[in-house]
């Protein structure tokens, strides 16, 4: 049920980086079963906005709320409910793909090796499960990162340029996964230059200079 206080709400957020007023009173709303596509030229603060939404960066002014409560007051619960994919795939080169997933997802929920292998299969890198991440190609690493997001079973997906280094099959796969996630009641916030063609309720936010 979509009540007014459901989901993510960002109100008039201002962030300065040194002298630059990077985010100037940005507001957005994201309800369950919605996908928000954030786009804009380089340097307009898309990644900064995503980090504010994650709770990593505290804005000078403005407020981020999750289900009506400020995220700084429910930080742990909020972060347990989200999955963040940064611009880099964020994998430890010395650990295998499976181990990377285990140590990341295992902190969020109890998960078996079987489930993790299934996630890796789903994103097409099942064969790489026991290979150290440093021998994987950039595209394979991106798919492992996607598998990590999948395995976390989070309500809110925050993805920063998830299509980087992916071929057409990979891009289609990401679209599919976003579709299923949103249909199942999740919400997603995607920063992408790429045009997003996903058959769900897509909102758009364009950040300008």
């Amino acid at each position: 049920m979509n009540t007014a206080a459901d989901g993510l709400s960002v109100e008039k957020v201002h962030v300065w980086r040194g002298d630059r007023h990077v985010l100037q009173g940005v507001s957005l709303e994201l309800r369950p079963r919605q996908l928000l596509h954030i786009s804009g030229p380089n340097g307009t603060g898309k990644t900064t906005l995503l980090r504010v939404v994650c709770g990593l960066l505290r804005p000078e002014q403005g407020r981020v709320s999750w289900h009506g409560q400020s995220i700084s007051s429910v930080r742990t619960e909020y972060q347990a409910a989200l999955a963040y994919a940064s611009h880099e795939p964020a994998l430890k080169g010395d650990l295998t793909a499976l181990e990377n997933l285990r140590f990341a997802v295992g902190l969020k929920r109890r998960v078996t090796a079987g489930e993790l292998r299934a996630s890796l299969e789903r994103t097409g890198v099942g064969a790489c499960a026991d290979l150290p991440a440093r021998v994987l190609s950039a595209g394979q690493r991106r798919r492992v990162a996607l598998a990590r997001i999948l395995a976390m079973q989070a309500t809110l997906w925050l993805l920063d340029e998830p299509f980087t280094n992916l071929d057409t099959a990979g891009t289609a796969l990401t679209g599919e996964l976003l579709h299923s996630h949103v249909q199942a009641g999740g919400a997603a916030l995607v920063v992408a230059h790429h045009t997003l063609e996903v058959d769900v309720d897509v909102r758009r936010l364009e950040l300008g200079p």
Partner: protein
Amino acid sequence: MNVGLLEAFALIVRRELCLSFRRPDQLLQPLVFFLIVTTLFPLGLNLQLSLLRDMSPGVLWVAALLSSLLSLDSLFKSDADDGTLEQLALCGQDLTVIVVAKTFAHWLVSGAALVLVSPVVGTALGIPTEAFLTMMLSLTLGTLTLSWLGAIGAGLTVGLKRGNVLLSLIVLPLAMPLLIFGAGATDRAISGTSSAGALYFLAALCVFTCTLAPFAATTALRITLE
């Protein structure tokens, strides 16, 4: 479904140990440095073993401090570089648990290793075997405290260019009381007088630091992550 504190702690310690043992060369380097630095002193001072003994607590402790500093840089750096630090910060566990787990694991492979190697170095410096127990006990407490001071310093300087120099600049003045009490305890053990006083102070410092430093280190990391 939800992962408890101890489980998370254990998982992170396992992760760190896994990563450390996959790079055995990086594990051994600080230990070798420890041995090398202790060798520098007799070479530079040209002393007989019996005279060296008087200086040995200080030499041992300075060498331990410096080699610990070397390995502290890696506490958060590799995670910060490949983006996994952010993932850890967003995993839904309290950041303090993560910091405690990482620092503890780091101490296991650096500080604890140092303590185990110390009898070798002690012999080289002429420390009598009767003093070994005090020496190792003081080193255990000292390296544990130093790991925590270093965690604060590392949290503040991770991501800075040439952060390791600044790290030393920050941590060494804070570590001077450690040096005083640790070397003092070993010195008294060598000369036969009771080192209990110094050890108690060292233990008090250790407990104090281990209790408060995690919060300081977590705050430092949050500042860095922004």
